[in-house]
């Protein structure tokens, strides 16, 4: 059995029941549809990022992490490169951040994707509910465009 090389892994995080926290899974669903016919692009959406994802990361040529940000202004879309690092403060069992997952992939599997970035969307509200706030709704087209152009650049 031959395995398809994953040129890009899209790794989203968020809770669809907590307002804007669901924007990561929403973008993952959009990407799933967009790249349905392309076996080299893999999408994984989770409520939390856990250590077992390190193996998936280690096996991919590039990884685009997607998450909402409670530190950015509501609706602010950013794309920043990510480096492996271990944040000891607040290290949790159930959830790791993108830098920690990259560090795990490196330390456990001796492998790191060539390109890695975090696409984040500033959250307006993470209260209980399945609706996005206005700023996040307005930001979604821009986020989709940035996701698409990043994947295009990484996989061409």
């Amino acid at each position: 059995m031959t395995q398809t090389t994953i040129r890009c892994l899209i790794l989203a995080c968020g809770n669809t029941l907590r307002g804007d926290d669901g924007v990561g899974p929403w973008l993952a669903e959009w990407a799933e549809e967009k790249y349905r016919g392309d076996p080299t692009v893999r999408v994984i959406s989770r409520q939390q990022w856990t250590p077992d994802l390190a193996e998936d990361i280690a096996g991919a040529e590039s990884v685009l992490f997607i998450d909402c940000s409670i530190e950015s202004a509501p609706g602010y879309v950013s794309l920043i490169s990510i480096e492996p690092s271990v944040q000891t403060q607040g290290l949790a069992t159930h959830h790791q951040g993108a830098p920690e997952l990259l560090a795990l992939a490196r330390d456990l599997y001796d492998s790191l994707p060539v390109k890695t970035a975090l696409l984040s969307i500033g959250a307006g509200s993470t209260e209980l509910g399945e609706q996005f706030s206005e700023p996040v709704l307005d930001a979604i087209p821009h986020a989709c465009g940035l996701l698409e152009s990043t994947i295009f650049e990484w996989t061409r």
Partner: protein
Amino acid sequence: MTQTITIDPVTRLEGHGKITIQLDSQGQVEDAHFHVTQVRGFERFSQGRPYYEMPSLMARICGICPVSHLIASAKACEAIMSVRIPHTAAQLRRMLNLAQMVQSHALSFFYLASPDLLLGMESDPVARNIFGVVAAKPQLGRAGIALRRFGQHIIELLGKKRIHPGWVVPGGVTEPLEPAKRDEILAMIPEAYANIGLALAAYKQIADSFKPEIEVFANFPSNYLSLINEDESIEFTDGALRLIGPQGGVIEDGINAARYTEVIGEAVENYSFTKFAYYKPLGYPSGSYRVGPLARLNIVESMGTPLADQELVQFKQLAKGPVESSFHYHHARLIEVLHGIEKIEQILTDPLILDKHVRAIAGVNRLEGAGQAEAPRGTLNHHYKVDENGLITWANLVIATGQNNNAMNKGVLQAAKEYVNDGKFTPGALNRLEAVIRTFDPCLSCSTHAFGQMPLVLTLLSPDGEIVDQVIR
């Protein structure tokens, strides 16, 4: 002047708890309590919902062991429907529950406990985490992650979701197993065997170096409760409950879900939102008992699978009667993982495993029903009452962590008496108090029926109730 020490929050637990230690006027430990500080309310807000929604509602109690809640809940609903589910559905549920047990035990052992076990109770707290384990023992780190993936992937293959799968329903399961999925699971088995073999060997190498902890980590006689099969082998999904006493003698056998409330009571203490389960004929607290891996292995005569049976023989040599120290929960957990892998392999070779008849259909035929199952942490009982339209009018859930509550409190007191002296404790002592709780792998979210972050607080109180010291993490 007496003093109190508080550890809040206790870390590397499934949930949010607090430890309070009361000192006497000489600064020696007088009493200790493990507090569960969350309230959830599933029993209340499920009232008015149709019974057939209960499994998927109840699964939301926990993100680690939703499958056990699904199964106990579905069985309670089947009692209301008065149906017996098809053989294949029972086998598929059994496999799902075992897969969950494997992933949950892997989480408990490798992510939560192994930093203490592999790096040392007094190692640098900054590195005492899964990253420290990976740096020190990368092969073991990979094995732990792979075992967790093994269990989670089976859950995803069967239930379509790794967390809160909806495949288990009242009457059975929604879809039969596809041959391709069976073959995919079978293909993962050899690697799983290799990984648990590695973990068991590593644990046995280091266990002897923890003799002081084994002595005082909830090491006392108690009763034990778990499901067991008629052939005396371990069971997680069906069978009936057996309660044994401190010397291993059977106190009561064949306790099915319908009889659960006759024999199991729940006491309330003013320092915790979690109830304290006990065996009614012995009263509270004499009727308190332990559940989970240690209890299960103390109760059964056989694991029902060859490799785990060999390990059980070694485990039972740890003591003449029941193995008492809760430190040995870790060992028991690894043996159960081995059993889980073997049993999943056995189930997949059942000639009827691909059978299409996987669901019994019926409506409300009784106004009350109860169901039980073994969660990774111990026995679960779901008990519901419905009206003529099948709407829930009352629900009670007896959860594993509540059943271990008394033992956890006694264990914290026992360890505090060993490690807290003159009103002070070192960081290593602090970690050991937390590690006592970790041996039980309590799920505080389940037990309180929690929301948000779930980390523990340790408080040191003077005799007059003043806070002398407090650690919040």
